[in-house]
């Protein structure tokens, strides 16, 4: 029954939307900065999936190229963000993300 379904782009986009919503929910709910970074990764992956889906549908390699650039930017963002987390946690070991609302030690 379910095997007869032809997987169109709408399925991938629905999955992408669900993944994005889960990631944004986690970003709103969790207080651990590391988990919040992981949720940002989830949202970026949802966008990547949508990029590849549209690229395949348009027969355009630009979607995959965009995903490559998103991936590089995500890597750079994680490196800098985790460095900030390490620096903050070293100075104040019990800080939560609400305590660093201002960018001062």
């Amino acid at each position: 029954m379910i095997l007869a379904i032809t997987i169109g782009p709408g399925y991938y986009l629905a999955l992408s939307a669900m993944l994005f919503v889960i990631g944004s929910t986690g970003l709103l709910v969790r207080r651990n900065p590391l988990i919040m970074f992981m949720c940002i990764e989830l949202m970026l992956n949802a966008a990547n999936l949508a990029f590849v889906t549209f690229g395949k549908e348009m027969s355009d390699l630009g979607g995959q190229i965009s995903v490559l650039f998103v991936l590089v930017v995500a890597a750079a963002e994680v490196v800098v963000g985790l460095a900030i987390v390490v620096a903050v946690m070293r100075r104040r070991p019990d800080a939560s993300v609400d305590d660093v609302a201002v960018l001062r030690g």
Partner: protein
Amino acid sequence: MMAAVIFFMASAIVLLGACGVILLKNPVHAALSLVATLFGIAIHFINLEAYFLAAVQVIVYAGAIVILFLFVIMLLGVDRAENISAEPILGQRQFAALALVGFIVLGILIGIATAGDITGVPPEAASSSPAEGGLAIDQSIESSDGTIIAPEENIRDIGRVLFSTRYVLALEITALLLTIAVVGAVVLARRPREEFEDIPEIEPPLLLRTDSMEEPPPEGLIETSDIELAVHDSENENQAVSESGVATE
């Protein structure tokens, strides 16, 4: 038909892993759930004939970024308890739950209802010729029955497009961005110099001591503490360098 089975299995992996990321209390478990999600996305990429991206997804995301997460988790301590019951903003949890349900339902409705024409491309245009001004995927990579597609063709095409005049400037800017990120991470994770002033100075070994060092200037001793500082910082630097190295590939 086989694609449907693969799609739903990979989707289950992706969604369960994503729920694990936001529901598990232990950050290590959350990071491992993130690996599951990224792996499911890689399966979807293969299903969408983006073979190179599937490999990059596993290598860079699961291999480098999640490992970086795990390094930082271990560095900060896994037993750091998160007070998840405290709600800083009134009604934030309820709003988030409402938004979750609403957006999922909306996504399913839009996705299923407009499954055929959601990209706005006419079906004949999508199947026969690329869009106007678009970069054509080489159609010859698909065999006549459409079942066997050579992944190396996909990689070759991506390389050609990436180094064409259309994207090569963005590629170079990306390299600059990675360099800046590495330098920024090293600067940010560097300990302030004052923390090391109470460390006792290390005398140079006797074999290395010469007559000229009998009356050492104060700068010489400061340099030995700088070496200590560099040793401490090299851990973070190595992470950042390996990170950027993999991502550039």
